[in-house]
């Protein structure tokens, strides 16, 4: 395998392309220039930091350090979900962390273990990029799922209370909202699977091809990662909503407004 190196000067010059979208923003008076510049700066710094760190992690390839790095990734994703959904940090940080661990660990370990037959389950070359891909998708799906769930609960509070009055237990009364939220969270991945390869070449496949592997190997990786992502998001969304319910409903089965920041 061989990947073409990008020179530092070449990469720096490539930033010049950004003049086009920024020029369009100025011309059309789209008020996100500041945000865009800040996002580009953050992207550069974050990736540089991760790049340096991963170089060390890859060279050491210690299962403990790799595991710790995964835990840090899960914690950052967890924090983003809690903040992104407007939930109280104290109540939801731990349950959503566990939901992410549950959703990421199973497909990741099956991928690296039985599928790739790696002698070391915590091999940095595999667990970190594949774990990151699964986790990134879990993060997106969790935010969509949790937000959809609580938005539906708020919009249809009367219908929910009516269901409770008919003798439903909490887990029975929330079922329609859980179904609605899971549908909203999983549909993007289902749609991606349905159109993959037709609209655009997916990220992992592109990466494997750029790494020098033949397209058939890249396709096998892509199919596997899509299965891993779909399994991971399904598990984590259901777990995240069910585990968040414990902190967001009072003992009488009523949604607790104090569970939310706004």
């Amino acid at each position: 395998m061989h990947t073409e190196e990008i020179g530092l000067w070449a990469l720096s010059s490539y930033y010049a392309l950004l003049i086009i979208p920024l020029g369009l923003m100025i011309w059309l008076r789209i008020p996100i220039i500041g945000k865009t510049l800040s996002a580009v700066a953050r992207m550069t710094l974050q990736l540089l930091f991760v790049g340096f760190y991963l170089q060390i992690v890859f060279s050491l390839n210690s299962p403990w350090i790799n595991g710790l790095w995964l835990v840090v990734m899960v914690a950052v994703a967890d924090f983003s979900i809690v903040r992104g959904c407007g939930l109280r940090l104290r109540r939801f940080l731990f349950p959503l962390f566990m939901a992410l661990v549950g959703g990421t660990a199973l497909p990741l370990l099956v991928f690296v273990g039985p599928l790739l037959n790696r002698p070391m389950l915590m091999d940095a070359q595999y667990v970190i990029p594949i774990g990151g891909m699964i986790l990134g998708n879990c993060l997106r799906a969790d935010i969509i799922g949790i937000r959809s769930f609580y938005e539906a609960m708020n919009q249809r509070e009367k219908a929910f209370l009516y269901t409770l009055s008919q003798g439903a237990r909490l887990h029975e009364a929330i079922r329609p909202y859980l179904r609605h939220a899971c549908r909203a969270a999983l549909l993007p991945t289902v749609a991606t699977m349905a159109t993959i390869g037709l609209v655009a070449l997916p990220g992992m496949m592109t990466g494997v091809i750029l790494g020098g592997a033949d397209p058939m190997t890249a396709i096998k990786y892509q199919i596997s990662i899509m299965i891993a992502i779909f399994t991971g998001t399904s598990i984590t969304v259901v777990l995240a909503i069910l585990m968040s319910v414990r902190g967001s409903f009072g003992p009488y089965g009523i949604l607790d407004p104090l569970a939310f920041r706004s």
Partner: protein
Amino acid sequence: MRSMKRLEAERATCLHGKTGSAPAIEMKNIVVRFEAKTVLDGFSLRLMPGEKLVLTGESGVGKSTVLKCILGFVIPAEGEIFIQGKRLTHDSVWTLRTLLSYVPQEPELGDGTLHEWFRSPFFFRANTSLRNNLDRLPGFLERFSLSQELLHKEVGALSGGEKQRAALISAILLERKIFLLDEPTSALDSKNGKKVLEFLFANPDVSILAVSHDHAFLDEADRVVELSARGGKNAY
């Protein structure tokens, strides 16, 4: 002399109930505050088994709040609630709700067809033993002037009156002994309102606590309690 005896008998019914057992509902010194506003201030109520009691009063005096307290949807800051002698707590609320039938003023029935909606409560663990009651659905639809075709209609497309009658039928099919009705005839014409009223009040085993301004309801009730501002009036 005869009228005196009748009055005495009515009073005894009000105080001790038609069956002489524990009150169907008892609320003691209930205080409910929504932020700075006190909605109920030391409110007490006793509904005896088989009694039909109507709460009336101006908007915002806390009539619907009384019903919501009994259902555990609003938690009073002070006071106690007993349903068939059992205290309402966060542990008992799940069992006690299965003794109640609630018909909200504007029922929100969620998604799906009306038939699916009628079936859904019978899949809750608390109601599975009552599933055969669904066989009585066609009869009740006819009694309350709802056509069979409505069963295949989306619940969101039903009129307010249709939803209200559907909610009443569901409440009846669930065979509870205590009915909590929040303006149950507000979206019905007088003919349908009368049918509903006659059916509900005809059953001597069913206790009814209704919020209503409907004159027919007020005339038929065993007792009418008018709530005043701050909900201080007791209904013992």
